[in-house]
């Protein structure tokens, strides 16, 4: 230090000052290469006391790199060219700390060469750091401003100077190089908003209060932004000095807000149109939030605070318990099911609402919330009720099914016809109503229908049946029609019970049948009457007329012998008359005997008895009587009639045998056309049926000059067979033989 050659007083003062200002001093003697460092210098560099600075060890304190090179260069320039230096540099202390220092050096020249460099070292670390911090904060602010589209401004009311932050330039799209002024600022404001803004600013100047401003600006490129401006006014003694504040571009926010409003409006509109309201029920705190339209649906003032009981109070009294029960059930079952209830409006009208929703649970599964929508379905419900009414008033059973045949709806008549409740049938397949044997028929007609769905009556002769719950089958006539609905094609099936029609038809048929039978019976009776008429007119009158004639002769006859003969003849006529009357009475008895006793009679037995009765004739005629009862051995018949039939026909065959041959008779039973038939075939005289067929079974008709012929046998036989509902006819060839056929 002594080499410096300066007074201790000055140096002390300097050192003191340097100490307060944290300024270190150093001196480099170029001749002796000695370096002097003051205490502050040592403090700044944090070197130990014993450290001796030398030319070759001090450069390491300068931060390596450009800083160190710059320091070296400066020292070199000072030494060689006598150039002083003033450098801010970074220093790395002996302890490794970084510091900013100001290094000022003055070279001192003697005889053209540098003898010493005197310098100071000032620790500027704190100052430097503050400056850095400020710069960084400014940068951050500018960044934040730019991101949030905020800029700040300052307006000096005294000299009119306007200062904008960078981001404000950006917001306004104002070139930085152009001047700014209040007028320039105003020029950017949308002309519609400009008067208002000017007013406000003038008010701020007058009142010293800057109210928030929102206005539009129009950029030079024509685009429009919305700006929100805030500010404060600085005054001195009531006079405005300056105003400063921020401007924020809130265009996006506004757009978003507008969009939100629009969407909300649309939603509200949609809600109103669809008569839907949105609700949320905080079950735990019993708090309800409703959309505006929900209030409208309930005819309540929008915004009325709500708990579940407020809602219940608005509900139709008959539905309240059901509503509560549903709410409790949903909480217990943790599941929402749609349901309907009614509300009564203040004007007394009733509306029907339907609720859809879901339950929200906490992490342990307790229901904490329900959300959903409520729709006013009064109109739908009304049309549904109308449709139902229409359906129920239909006279026929109506079943409405979808295209798969699943039952959607049935009417009251259907419940009655099938004995099922509506709930039992809805969602069941329609085949539940149809007997299995008719499923194919049903499917066939369904297929035809779906090929071209139109009003279709199934054929009336289809003989279709449905069966009810207890399995009872009902004959029906079916008409199917397409039913276009919003849910697709449905099919309405009209089913008409035609049991009565069937019964009527059956009755008519039966009546017809019995009429035919009656007609037949009447005809038969008529014929019998005619026959009887004929018998009385002829067979009874002729003996009477004979008697009358004989009496006339008797009266005029004188010869007693002849008179005697006449009396004999009269007796004979009387006997004949008696026999005729007896036979007629017998035939009447047969005809009127409606209750004949039926018993199982074997043909063979009957034939046997007949043979016994005709034993003499058979013996005399040497007749051969054969039989074949193998096909039908017996019959349920009146035994006496059957014997009489056998006796009459066989005795006829014997009576009217051909003279030239031995009579052969075959009796055979068989089934023809489902009826028991008996044939008596002989080889006798035969009858010309062309001539005599109509008289064959008449009373007292004889066809042969036979003494025994009375013409009664076949008459009575026919009477007996007729009485039993049978039929007798003959086939014959004169000279060959006759066959009698009897259908029982």
């Amino acid at each position, binding site marked *: 230090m002594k080499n410096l050659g300066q007074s201790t007083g000055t140096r002390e003062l300097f050192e003191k000052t340097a100490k307060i200002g944290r300024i270190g001093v150093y001196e480099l003697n170029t001749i002796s290469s000695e370096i002097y460092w003051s205490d502050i210098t040592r403090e700044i560099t944090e070197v130990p006391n014993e450290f001796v600075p030398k030319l070759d060890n001090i450069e390491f304190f300068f931060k390596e790199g450009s800083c160190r090179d710059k320091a070296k260069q400066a020292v070199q320039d000072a030494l060689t060219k006598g150039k002083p230096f003033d450098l801010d540099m970074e220093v790395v202390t002996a302890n490794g700390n970084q510091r900013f220092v100001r290094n000022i050096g003055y070279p001192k020249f003697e005889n053209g060469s540098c003898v010493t460099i005197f310098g100071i070292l000032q620790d500027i670390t704190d100052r430097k750091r503050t400056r850095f911090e400020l710069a960084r904060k400014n940068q951050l602010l500018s960044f934040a401003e730019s991101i949030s589209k905020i800029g700040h401004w300052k307006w000096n009311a005294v000299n009119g100077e306007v200062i904008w932050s960078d981001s404000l330039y950006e917001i306004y799209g104002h070139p930085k190089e152009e001047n700014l002024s209040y007028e320039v600022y105003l020029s950017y404001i949308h002309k519609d908003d400009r008067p208002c803004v000017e007013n406000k600013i003038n008010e701020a100047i007058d009142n010293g209060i800057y109210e928030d401003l929102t206005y539009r600006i129009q950029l030079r490129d024509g685009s429009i932004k919305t700006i929100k401006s805030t500010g404060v006014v600085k005054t001195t003694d009531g006079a405005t000095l300056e105003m400063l504040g921020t401007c924020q571009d809130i265009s996006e926010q506004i757009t978003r807000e507008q969009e939100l409003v629009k969407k909300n409006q649309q939603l509200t509109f949609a809600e109103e149109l669809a008569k839907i309201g949105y609700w949320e029920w905080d079950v735990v705190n019993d708090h309800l939030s409703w959309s505006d339209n929900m209030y409208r649906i309930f005819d309540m003032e929008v915004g009325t605070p709500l708990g579940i009981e407020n809602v219940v109070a608005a509900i139709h009294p008959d539905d309240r318990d059901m509503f509560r029960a549903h709410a409790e059930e949903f909480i217990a079952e943790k599941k929402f099911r749609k349901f309907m209830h009614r509300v009564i409006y203040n004007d007394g009208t009733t509306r029907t609402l339907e609720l859809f929703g879901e339950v929200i649970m906490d992490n342990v599964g307790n229901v904490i919330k329900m959300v959903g929508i409520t729709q006013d379905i009064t109109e739908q419900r009304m049309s549904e009720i109308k449709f139902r009414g229409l359906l129920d008033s239909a006279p026929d059973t109506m079943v409405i099914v979808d295209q798969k045949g699943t039952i959607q709806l049935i009417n009251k008549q259907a419940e009655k016809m099938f004995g099922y409740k509506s709930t039992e049938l809805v969602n069941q397949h329609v085949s539940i109503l149809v007997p299995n044997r008719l499923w194919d028929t049903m499917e066939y007609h369904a297929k035809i229908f779906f090929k071209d769905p139109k009003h279709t009556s199934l054929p009336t002769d289809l003989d279709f049946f449905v069966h009810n719950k207890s399995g009872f089958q009902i004959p029906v006539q079916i008409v199917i029609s397409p039913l276009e609905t919003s849910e697709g094609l449905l099919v309405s099936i009209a089913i008409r019970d035609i049991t009565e029609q069937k019964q009527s038809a059956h009755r008519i048929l039966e009546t017809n049948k019995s009429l035919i039978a009656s007609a037949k019976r009447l005809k038969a009776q008529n014929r019998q009457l005619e026959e009887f*008429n*004929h018998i009385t*007119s*002829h*067979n009874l*009158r*002729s*003996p*009477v*007329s*004979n008697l*009358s*004639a*004989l009496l*006339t*002769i008797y009266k005029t006859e004188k010869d007693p012998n002849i008179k005697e003969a006449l009396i004999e*003849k009269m007796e*004979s*006529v009387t006997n004949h008359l008696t026999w005729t009357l007896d036979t007629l009475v017998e035939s009447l008895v047969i005809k009127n005997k409606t209750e004949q006793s039926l018993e199982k009679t074997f043909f063979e037995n009957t034939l046997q008895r007949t043979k016994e009765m005709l034993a003499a004739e058979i013996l005399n005629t040497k007749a051969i009587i054969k039989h074949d009862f193998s096909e039908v051995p017996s019959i349920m018949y009146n035994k006496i009639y059957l014997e009489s039939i056998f006796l009459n026909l066989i005795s006829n065959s014997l009576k009217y045998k051909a003279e030239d041959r031995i009579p052969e008779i075959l009796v055979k039973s068989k089934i023809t056309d489902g009826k028991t038939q008996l044939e008596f075939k002989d080889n006798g005289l035969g009858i010309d049926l062309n*001539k005599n067929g109509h*008289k064959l079974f008449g009373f*007292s*008709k*004889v*066809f*042969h*000059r*036979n003494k025994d*012929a009375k*013409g009664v046998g076949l008459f009575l036989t026919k009477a007996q067979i007729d009485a039993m509902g049978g039929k007798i006819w003959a086939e014959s060839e004169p000279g060959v033989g006759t066959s009698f056929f009897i259908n029982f």
Partner: protein
Amino acid sequence: MKPINVFVVDDDDIYQFTMGVALKNFPEVKLASTFSDGAEALDYITTNQNEPDSLPDIIFLDINMPVMDGFQFMEEFVDLLPKLEKTIKVYLVSSSIDPKDLKKAKRIDAITDYLIKPLKSEDIREVLSHFD
């Protein structure tokens, strides 16, 4: 007065007898023959068709007879008539008052009249009166 030949065709022997007696009371009746059925009468007529004197002037024909009744007889007799050289009047005589029989008789031209038994003397006189 022309002698009249009369045939009575009837299976009723009592009737044959009474007619015989009745006809005897009419002197104009030269001959009264009886037949028991239509076939017998027809056989006779066919056999004697060429001998007009053997043929009848009047036939009293019964309807109901075995083998060949009155109507059956008429069918054959109508065929035979044109061959005969004699006018033969046929009277259908029956105890039947059945209108059906009457109708049927009226349809046959060869039948002169339908008479109902018993025939009284007046009836026979009336018939005979047409022959003079």
